[in-house]
């Protein structure tokens, strides 16, 4: 049960947020949607004396896209809004899909993409897409701002490279190259509402001759952190996109994951599914790259 002595701060400016986090260092957590934090606190898995809400802070709620700059998602933007943003659907279909199917309607309305990343579940649905889209996180603390590539963001199950006194101000995602196609697919036993048992995201950029110029593949829920599969990516780079190539890349992706057995699926099943999903994701990427998105 939640401790009744919990204090909830509701600052209206980012500076105040950072001050509070600093002041209560180690005993404070950022509160956005609360959809991860509150269940944990209720179950006694997270004990913290202070919540610092960012829900009244101006400037964290914008979502913008510019061809030359890419996408900027403010730290307070809700998952539903990201999924429904027309430019996200157009340029980042893998992210749009993740944001439209993960969890439930209510949780998508309440939760933020930043929060989904910061919670750092290995199964976070927005992570694999953001990994393949080369996202970076703008993180602020009292006295400074830094940008972290998402590749370096996840450090362990439930662990990210954010200090307890820092806040994700924005997620920046560069514009994918025009001849590229991307996709995200996920699986679990009930197949719809669950925490994904397996997730795979892919991005293929083609050169003018139709060869794969650049490939990015990422997996969720099959390793301690959402991760890229560099072996498969290297296998794909510079090659003609063929079914045979995709099959080999899928096998490499499968070999590169290390899932666990848990209540949602067995390690063996997850490993097998990485192969299946990787092939399907690559197939969808090629279709989208060729046909335009």
């Amino acid at each position, binding site marked *: 049960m*939640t*401790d*009744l*002595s*919990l*204090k*909830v701060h*509701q600052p209206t400016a980012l500076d105040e947020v950072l001050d509070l986090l600093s002041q209560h260092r180690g005993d404070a957590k950022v*509160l956005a949607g*609360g*959809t991860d934090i*509150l*269940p944990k*606190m*209720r179950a006694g898995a997270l004990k913290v004396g202070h*919540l610092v*809400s960012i*829900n009244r802070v101006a400037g964290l709620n914008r979502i913008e896209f510019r061809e030359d700059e890419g996408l900027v998602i403010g730290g307070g933007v809700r998952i*539903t809004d990201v999924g429904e943003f027309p430019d996200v659907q157009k340029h980042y279909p893998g992210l749009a899909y993740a944001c439209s199917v993960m*969890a*439930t*309607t*209510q*949780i998508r*309305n*309440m939760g933020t993409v930043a929060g989904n990343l910061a919670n750092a579940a290995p199964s976070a649905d927005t992570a694999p897409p953001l990994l393949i889209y080369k996202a970076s996180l703008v993180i602020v603390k009292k006295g400074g701002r830094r940008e972290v590539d998402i590749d370096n963001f996840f450090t362990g199950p439930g662990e990210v490279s954010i200090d307890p006194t820092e806040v994700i101000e924005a997620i920046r995602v560069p514009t994918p190259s025009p001849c590229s196609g991307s996709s995200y697919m996920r699986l679990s036993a009930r197949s*719809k*509402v669950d925490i994904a048992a397996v997730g795979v995201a892919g991005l293929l950029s083609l050169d003018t001759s139709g060869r794969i110029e650049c490939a990015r593949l990422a997996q969720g829920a099959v390793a301690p952190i959402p991760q890229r599969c560099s072996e498969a990516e290297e296998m794909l780079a510079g090659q003609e996109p063929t079914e045979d190539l995709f099959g080999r890349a899928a096998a490499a992706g499968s070999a590169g994951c290390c899932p666990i057995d848990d209540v949602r699926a067995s390690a063996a099943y997850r490993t097998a599914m990485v192969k299946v999903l990787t092939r399907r994701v690559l197939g969808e990427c090629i279709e989208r790259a060729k046909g335009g998105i």
Partner: protein
Amino acid sequence: MAKQIIELTVNGDRYEVAVEPSRSLAEVLREDLGLTGTKIGCNQGDCGACTVLIDGRSVASCMTLAVEAQHREITTIEGLAASLQNLHPIQEAFVEHGAVQCGFCTSGMIMSAKNLLDKNPSPSEQEIRHALSGNLCRCTGYTKIVEAIDAAAGNLAAGPDKGEQP
């Protein structure tokens, strides 16, 4: 156990309540404001029985802190109908189409339906089902709920006359 005095606007009414910051909106609605139409089915954000609208959006009120719901427009099931005789078209459709059995999921279902139809006045069956992904029901198999929402969409589109009780 320091309580805070907060102001909640629920169904257009302003309430002042003293609550501990850790208390959920669902609890405060039910225990402090006497609005027990919002139900608690799991208290973990999974079942949707506690769904209310905040600024028109469906949220799980069991996962929303009451203090965070200040300065927002909260709509609960009690705020939909003008009276027992004059129901909202969604409520009317639920009654007419047999979408209510034990009734425990009903408030949440209707609030999710309202969110959907406010955003998307003529949803497909798939869109309706997707919108209800966070509302569990053990009695109805969802069929008549989906039919009711579809019918309500039609009634709302047809205009206020069609939506009123015959």
